[in-house]
């Protein structure tokens, strides 16, 4: 029973298991079916895709083969075994193959090669070349092939490699008969024009981008003397050009490379070494793509023209030199004339003082007037020629317009003296600053106009007005009016007065003299500076000259000091006693002249010892002491004065040092000096020291010293450019007599002393060189040669320190090089100053 139960349960379990398995399997089967359905669907779409692709491929293939069959070029595609894969009708036509292209597929080309060989002008060469190309397996393009019947083909060969595996090749034959013919025609036409150019004596030369000669045409060869063979392949520049023109050519080569043409002139060297001048027109040569492949030069031999040009230039220079000589002659002559003229005028003055008879007096007056007129005429002529030749330079420097007008008026007033004529000045008080412009020209303009007014006005007044007419930013337009109460000018003559050599009438000329140049010069001077002038006049009542000139505002306030010499207003100068201890003659002269001018009593000592001796005899208020002197120097002398019982033990001593060197200053203070002045010093500085150190009880009534002649003369003379004009102005304040005196001393003393120095240098007497250099050194800045003074100082120090001879020679060489010009400038200015002496 139990067994039956077990069996029943087993059966039941197995049945259950089977059912369960069946259920699982059924589920799996359904899953499988679904997956299978999906796969089928996928397969279907895949097939469709393949169909589409196959179709597209077929279309593209058919397109390609249609294209190839319809191409004008003959195409032959062979596989790696030489079997035809593709061939078109054009190919068959070219080689006269009667078989239709599609029947040729698969056949071997080499079989039929012999059949077509006789079509080529050179069958052997064609066969050989085919073999060569096939074995090389390299791209060949545009090989020209000539046929017996006159056709010309361009052949391309393209080997086909896929992943380095050779898979056959493609031949392409293109009929280029027409192109070649056209090209030949072109070449013929080019040759024709080249021939024409050649016949025009234009030499053509073609070079590549590296400057190598590619072609040299016959006319060029003829021009340059080489044969074509000698030139081709040579560097054009190296072979044909002198070195000095390499730079010109380089510029041109760069232009060509940039695709630009150009025309230039160079010299060229012929084969025989002779030089010719060539005018070259260079053009770049382009390829079809527009790249520059070289250049073509068209050469024209202009040697004859150049010679002519040179001759002309030479002639022009000669003519100019002659003109220059003429001007120089005129200038020289004017000076030459002025010198005796000055003598005549001076002598006629002197003759006046020799109690001549009335008759003689009258002759003398005529003589004097004629000479004056002659002098005026000459200076006017000189001015006119200067303006005309454009030599007049307009200076731009700072000056005080107000001061100038006032001092001009003052000098006129002095001149008017007892005439019933007064001069008045009206100045716009808005003019507060100095201006920048040409003071000399303004002075000349005003002098001319005031001179005229003075001449034509017997009584009444002359009125000078200056006002600001316009002001823009820092520029002024100043209006000047010179009005008089003179005879006036008739209305119909107003237009004439500014014309050269024109006066109102002959009567005026007789009555008043003058060259008739004055107003013309004035007008030109004004216009040169960008100004204008006009005149208003009423006959018998007076004239009014109105002009305006542009100036720049300097931004500096007008200082009262300008145009005045330093004064010792607060010092009872006569009560002051000064001792000057100085070994240099020029410096002595310089200081003494100033002291004399200020009425200051002074004594002079030539060296420290003499100075000390004089200090023991007399009490001084101030001592000016040079520091470097022979016998006893300034320091020793000061120590002696300070440490001995004498009247000047407490007197102020001012050191005169050669330079502002600290060591010298310290030494001066240690020796007991109170202060120092560095050479070259100006009158101002001396005044300052005197005022500072002279005891106050001596300051008494104010005494102002004016010297009109100084300021008056100032504007008329200009120092030579070589000289330090600024320094000279500071030193002398336009006191021309003083300058003349100092220049004279320089020429008479320093110049000979310099020769002594030269001799000492040649003799290599360095101690003597040092001594002389020290001695004459300060005199150079006194004449405006400060640079030479610096060199002298260098020479002195070097000689003292016994530097090698070469170094001394170097310094001396510089002095030697500079000095002659300097001396010349001093002499020339001295001569000029002598001329204005009268």
């Amino acid at each position, binding site marked *: 029973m139990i067994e039956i139960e077990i069996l029943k349960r087993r059966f039941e379990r197995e049945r259950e298991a*089977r059912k369960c398995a069946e259920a699982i399997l059924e589920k799996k089967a359904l899953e499988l079916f679904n997956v299978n359905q999906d796969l089928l669907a996928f397969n279907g779409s895949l097939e469709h895709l393949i169909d589409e692709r196959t179709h597209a491929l077929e279309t593209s293939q058919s397109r390609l083969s249609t294209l190839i069959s319809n191409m004008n070029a003959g195409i032959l595609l062979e596989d790696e075994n030489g079997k035809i894969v593709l061939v078109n009708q054009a190919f068959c036509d070219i080689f006269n193959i009667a078989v239709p292209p599609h029947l040729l597929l698969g056949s071997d080309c080499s079989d039929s090669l012999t059949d077509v060989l006789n079509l080529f002008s050179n069958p052997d060469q064609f066969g050989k070349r085919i073999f060569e190309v096939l074995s090389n397996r390299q791209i060949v393009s545009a090989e020209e092939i000539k046929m017996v019947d006159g056709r010309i083909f361009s052949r391309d060969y393209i080997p086909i490699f896929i992943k380095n595996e050779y898979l056959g090749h493609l031949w392409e034959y293109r009929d280029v008969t027409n192109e070649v013919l056209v090209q030949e025609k072109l070449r013929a036409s080019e040759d024709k024009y080249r021939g024409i150019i050649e016949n025009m004596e234009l030499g053509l030369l073609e070079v590549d981008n590296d400057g190598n000669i590619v072609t040299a045409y016959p006319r060029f060869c003829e021009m340059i003397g080489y044969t074509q063979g000698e030139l081709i392949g040579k560097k054009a520049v190296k072979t044909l050009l002198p070195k000095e023109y390499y730079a010109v050519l380089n510029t041109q080569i760069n232009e060509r490379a940039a695709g630009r043409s150009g025309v230039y002139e160079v010299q060229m060297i012929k084969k025989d070494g002779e030089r010719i001048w060539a005018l070259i027109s260079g053009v770049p040569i382009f390829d079809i793509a527009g790249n520059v492949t070289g250049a073509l030069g068209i050469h024209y031999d202009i040697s004859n023209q150049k010679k002519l040009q040179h001759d002309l230039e030479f002639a022009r220079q000669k003519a100019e030199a002659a003109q220059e000589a003429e001007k120089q002659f005129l200038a020289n002559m004017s000076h030459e004339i002025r010198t005796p003229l000055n003598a005549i005028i001076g002598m006629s003055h002197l003759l006046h003082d020799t109690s001549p008879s009335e008759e003689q007096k009258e002759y003398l007056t005529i003589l004097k007037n004629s000479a004056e007129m002659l002098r005026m005429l000459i200076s006017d002529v000189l001015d006119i020629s200067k303006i005309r030749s454009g030599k007049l330079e307009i200076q731009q420097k700072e000056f005080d317009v107000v001061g100038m007008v006032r001092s001009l008026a003052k000098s006129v007033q002095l001149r008017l003296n007892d005439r019933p004529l007064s001069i008045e000045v009206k100045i716009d008080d808005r003019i507060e600053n100095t201006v920048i412009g040409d003071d000399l020209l303004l002075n000349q303009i005003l002098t001319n106009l005031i001179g005229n007014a003075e001449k034509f006005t017997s009584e009444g007044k002359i009125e000078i007005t200056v006002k600001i007419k316009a002001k823009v930013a820092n520029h002024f337009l100043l209006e000047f009016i010179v009005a008089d109460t003179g005879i006036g000018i008739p209305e119909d003559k107003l237009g004439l007065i500014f014309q050269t050599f024109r006066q109102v009438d002959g009567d005026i000329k007789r009555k008043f003299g003058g060259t008739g140049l004055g107003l013309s010069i004035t007008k030109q001077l004004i216009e040169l500076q960008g100004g204008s002038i006009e005149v208003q006049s009423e006959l018998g009542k007076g004239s009014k000259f109105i002009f305006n000139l542009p100036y720049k505002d300097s931004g500096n306030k007008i200082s009262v000091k300008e145009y005045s010499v330093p004064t010792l207003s607060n010092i009872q100068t006569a009560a002051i006693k000064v001792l000057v201890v100085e070994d240099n003659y020029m410096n002595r002269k310089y200081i003494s002249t100033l002291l004399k001018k200020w009425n200051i009593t002074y004594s002079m000592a030539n060296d420290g010892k003499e100075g000390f001796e004089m200090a023991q005899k007399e009490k001084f208020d101030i001592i000016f002491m040079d520091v470097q002197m022979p016998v006893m120097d300034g320091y020793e002398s000061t120590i002696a004065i300070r440490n001995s019982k004498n009247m000047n033990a407490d007197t102020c001593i001012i050191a005169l040092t050669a330079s502002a060197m600290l060591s010298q200053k310290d030494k001066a203070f240690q020796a007991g000096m109170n202060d120092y002045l560095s050479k070259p010093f100006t009158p101002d500085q001396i005044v300052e020291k005197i005022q500072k150190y002279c005891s106050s009880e001596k300051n008494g009534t104010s005494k102002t010293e004016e010297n009109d002649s100084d300021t008056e003369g100032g504007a008329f003379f200009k120092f030579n450019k070589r000289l330090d004009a600024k320094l000279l102005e500071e030193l002398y304040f336009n006191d021309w007599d003083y300058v003349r005196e100092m220049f004279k001393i320089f020429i008479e003393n320093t110049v000979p002393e310099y020769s002594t120095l030269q001799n000492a240098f040649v003799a290599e007497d360095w101690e003597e060189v040092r001594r002389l250099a020290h001695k004459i050194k300060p005199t150079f800045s006194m004449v405006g040669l400060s640079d030479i003074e610096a060199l002298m100082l260098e020479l002195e120090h070097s000689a003292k320190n016994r530097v090698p001879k070469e170094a001394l020679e170097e310094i001396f060489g510089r002095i030697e090089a500079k000095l002659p010009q300097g001396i010349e400038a001093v002499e020339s200015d001295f001569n000029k100053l002598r001329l204005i002496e009268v």
Partner: protein
Amino acid sequence: MKGVIFTEFLDLVEENFGYETVDTIIEKSSLSTNGAYTAIGTYPHSEMFQLIGNLSQEKNIPVEVLLRLFGKHVFSVLMKSFPTHTRHISHTFQLLESIENHIHVEVRKIYPDAELPHFQITRLDDNTIEMIYTSKRKMADLAIGLIEGCFDHFNEKGTVQKTNLKDDGSEVRLLILKK
């Protein structure tokens, strides 16, 4: 747990002890299927523990021994069932070393829901492999049986020493020595 394990187990029990024993352990266990297993099904592994536990009691043979014996048997069955997957394997160590990276990968392809034990294999020398068994099924002895079956399959001789790393047997160190 795959049904094939159950059917193989019950076949093995029947073969060794007769169907009466099979019936007894099924009847003693409380099974979702009432003991009707098909090789292609999937069943809770707790049922296997019940069956083995009851067999152990019935025949008085420790569970470990039963699991080893069963493992040895299952190995040969598995080798027959999946010949392509082990074609390239020629000896035991090679197979052991390919469990994680090859065999289990293939198993997951066929049974995506299989819950597999983790083996960390370290080759100590030419003849020794250390295997760390980790599984919440705690059936390291089944693994030992499988290894022994493997040695037999490749005609090799070897022993397996077992050390529990966790008392519940969820992490076990097996030292496999090839002779």
